[in-house]
């Protein structure tokens, strides 16, 4: 009897699980970075933790991004039976990110994609779901600060990992000025 594995079966779970997990991840990244500093005998804790924290969450996102492409391509193929999207030009890859990746990860597409055709891309999500519940008791400004410090590294890491798996070196930074609209600035070498 052939072993049938239906990857397109109902592999869904409650969105809340991921939301709670990400909240906790941001929380523990602080503790874990203190641990890392202890391990490496870093003198200046404050300074080091601030930048290291972001790195930790970004790493987590990066690892996800690396593995994501294959999985998404498989999903796509199965669903419409059409060929794989064209990855010849970086701009097409960006479009893939805007449409397919964002849709399957966050349930909606990127609202706006801009480029200077010289390696810089800006993706704008006007209502980024992963930060939609953030609300600091200290007011909007603090919410923005905290968002920048902790909660945007994950999607940046995902994008960076994804591009890396398609052989594109990049740096990704996110900026939020008007909550909950986030813009991702991607600097690529091509």
């Amino acid at each position, binding site marked *: 009897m052939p072993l049938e594995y239906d990857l397109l079966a109902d592999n869904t*779970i*409650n*969105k*809340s699980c991921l939301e709670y997990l990400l909240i*906790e991840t941001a*929380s523990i990244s602080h503790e874990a970075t203190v641990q890392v500093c202890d*391990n490496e005998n870093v003198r200046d804790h404050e300074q080091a933790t601030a930048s290291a924290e972001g790195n930790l969450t970004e790493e987590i996102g990066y690892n996800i991004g690396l593995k994501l492409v294959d*999985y998404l391509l498989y999903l796509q193929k199965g669903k419409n039976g059409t060929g794989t999207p064209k990855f010849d030009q970086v701009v097409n890859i960006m479009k893939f990110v805007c449409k397919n990746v964002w849709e399957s990860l966050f349930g909606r597409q990127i609202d706006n994609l801009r480029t200077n055709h010289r390696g810089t891309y800006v993706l704008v999500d006007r209502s980024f779901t992963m930060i939609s519940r953030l609300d600091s008791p200290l007011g909007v400004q603090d919410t923005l600060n905290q968002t920048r410090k902790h909660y945007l590294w994950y999607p940046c890491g995902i994008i960076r990992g994804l591009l890396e798996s398609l052989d594109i070196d990049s740096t990704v930074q996110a900026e939020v000025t008007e909550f909950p609209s986030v813009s991702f600035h991607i600097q690529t070498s091509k």
Partner: protein
Amino acid sequence: MSKPYKLIGEDVYKNRTEKINSELFTLTYGSVVAQLCRDYNNDYKKVNEQLESMGYNIGIRLIEEFLAKTNFGRCINFKETAEIISKVGFKMFLNTTPTVDNFSADGKQFNLILEDNPLAEFVELPDDNKAVKELWYSNVLVGVLKGALQMVQLDVDVSFVKDILRGDPSTEIKLRLNKILKDEIPAGED
């Protein structure tokens, strides 16, 4: 008369939750565990503790969503608790229904057998001989159960006893009721 918990669980999951692809969650969780192992230098006991602590923080919040969506009242006995956890709780969040097994004669202990564990799909533990003996990969579940039950005034000891990732035949969690926190039960329930 046993209530149709299975139907309730399926109904809540189908109609009252937002769903995402479980693979993204699996990847994220995997990344988190891997990162923790790296940061704690493969001190798996510490990683287990950290995972449980994360789970606890998630559990004390997640219980409100569970109660809000299911409107359940207080369970008559621990057996009912077991049924609700497996058929409604797990179904509602992880879209899986573990089996309740080994219910003790004094009615205070049972095991949950997870046939499929969305946290650990396609995961292999690292090849050092330590991980297989010391790491409980899905230990976050232990914390979630403990935290959630504590919020409804049940002091329960939760721990993994077997894990497929370790080479055991099944994945099992043991729950033992220590006591009902009678002092903390809110006034006004009969």
